């Protein structure tokens, strides 16, 4: 798969990464190379093979429904770039 600039722009937008117009060509080439490299997987016969999402051979552990955490807003907000009255603050979102 060879990526064009529009596709690179689109995925950069999905990933919320600002990419300068003059970087697009280089990035498109680089990403296309990488995709060509990984596309060698196409030659592997995977018929009937179940995708492996985890190597952990165990059951999903479950917690009891108890309040054991939270109630420490200072720890949550300690690194906030901007905060007012216990809220995180971002540029206004217009719906």
């Amino acid at each position: 798969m060879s990526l064009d600039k529009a596709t690179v722009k689109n995925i950069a937008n999905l990933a919320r990464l600002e990419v300068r117009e003059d970087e697009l060509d280089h990035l498109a080439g680089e990403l296309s190379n990488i995709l060509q490299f990984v596309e060698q997987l196409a030659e592997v016969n995977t018929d009937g093979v179940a995708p492996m999402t985890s190597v952990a051979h165990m059951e999903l552990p479950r917690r009891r429904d108890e309040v054991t955490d939270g109630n420490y807003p200072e720890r949550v907000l300690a690194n906030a770039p901007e905060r007012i009255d216990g809220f995180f603050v971002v540029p206004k979102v217009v719906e």
Partner: protein
Amino acid sequence: MSYVIEGETGDWELVIGLEVHAQVISKSKLFSGAATDFGAEPNTQVSLVDAAMPGMLPVINEYCIEQGVRTGLGLKAKINLTSVFARKNYFYADLPQGYQISQYEYPIVGEGEVILDMPDGSTRTVGIERLHLEQDAGKSLHDQHPSKSFIDLNRSGVALMEIVSKPDMRSPEEAAAYITKLRSILRYLGSCDGNMAEGSMRCDVNVSVRKAGEPYRTRAEIKNVNSIRFVHQAIEYEARRQVDLYEEGGQVVQETRLFDANKGETRSMRSKEHAHDYRYFPDPDLLPLNLTQDYVDAIKATLPELPDEKKERFIRDYHLSAYDAGLLVADQATADFFESVAKGRDPKMACNWVMGDFSAAMNRLGRTIDNPPVSAANLGGLIDLIADDTISGRLAKEVFELMVETGKAPAVIVDEKGLRQVTDTGAIEASIDAVLAANGDKVEQYRSGKDKLFGFFVGQVMKATGGKANPALVNEILKKKLG
């Protein structure tokens, strides 16, 4: 009673599907131990996991799984013994992880059904497509500052059940009935409190229109419609908009729309449209959720009697109409109240009282069934007094109001106020004799054929006895004496 929109080009049918987000009742969040209570100070009910601090990991709450299974069983749905949590990736200020942990390809619950009780007493079945568990996002407040939005993560990570219906509804009324019934089932199950005002139940409405017999046309999704009334309004507006659009030669585009409750209209949310691609993939921080049939069966064994079964039983055992039974079972506490009142009594009379004067008083006083204006025992006692002719039905209404006012038992009120019905034939005869004697001219007129005067005599006797004479006896003796 099919619902159609009459357009220039003919009749249009509505096709409606609903996605309901129901907040799971649990003490702590789906993947963290922070509390879920509504209305706490901002960012207090937030763990490091909910704030998506670097290196934080999710651990699932077993009770939320149970609630999901319980709800699935209540919707007569297939429980999937293996389900998978997936990440739904998108950026938003109140979505700390940059993804929502949800279920995508493999939800915990598959197909089921909800039976709607329509106002005319008929029923309709709406298919359930799936139910899955997912995390709620935080809350953005846009009205606190001229140029900033404020973010509170208290809700972040609270467990939600997304319940997706099939596109089986054909009118706003059916959509309303669906939400009402679904909420009733969730409340019976104790899996969601159904409080739409606090946002613990939220609806996305999918609407399309078509000519009869056509395949489905393009649908619009109206997001976050937060009351049954708004669902009704939003559907009506959106359907009309789509019909007008088609008839003007336009096309409906698949998009997300917002319902503006102030203007009563829907409008496009183009800002949210741009490049939606959620890039779902199985969450590598979690493993597939495997359940055993034994686990599911054990939950099944604890299910309460649900509204549909209860309704059937009320029709069968109490001989109530489908309509009455449907109304009574909509709320579990009301149904229980009714059953306490009806026990050993005439069920129809119990139903009439519960749905009539009792409900009216409750609404008037802003009380709830958990804090009723009159206890079930007292309401039952009142019905007993009617049944054994201690008081007449008409007097009973007065007694009921006094019960509401004073909280006293009906028998006490009857005694205190001397309202006990007179069933002593001697006393009634004496009253009648007195009335007849005082109205000799009317007696003559009656006897010469003026039948209508019978009511006058009854009225006079009742007046003379202070309304306490047993009306049936009065009638009987009067007829004999005048005969």
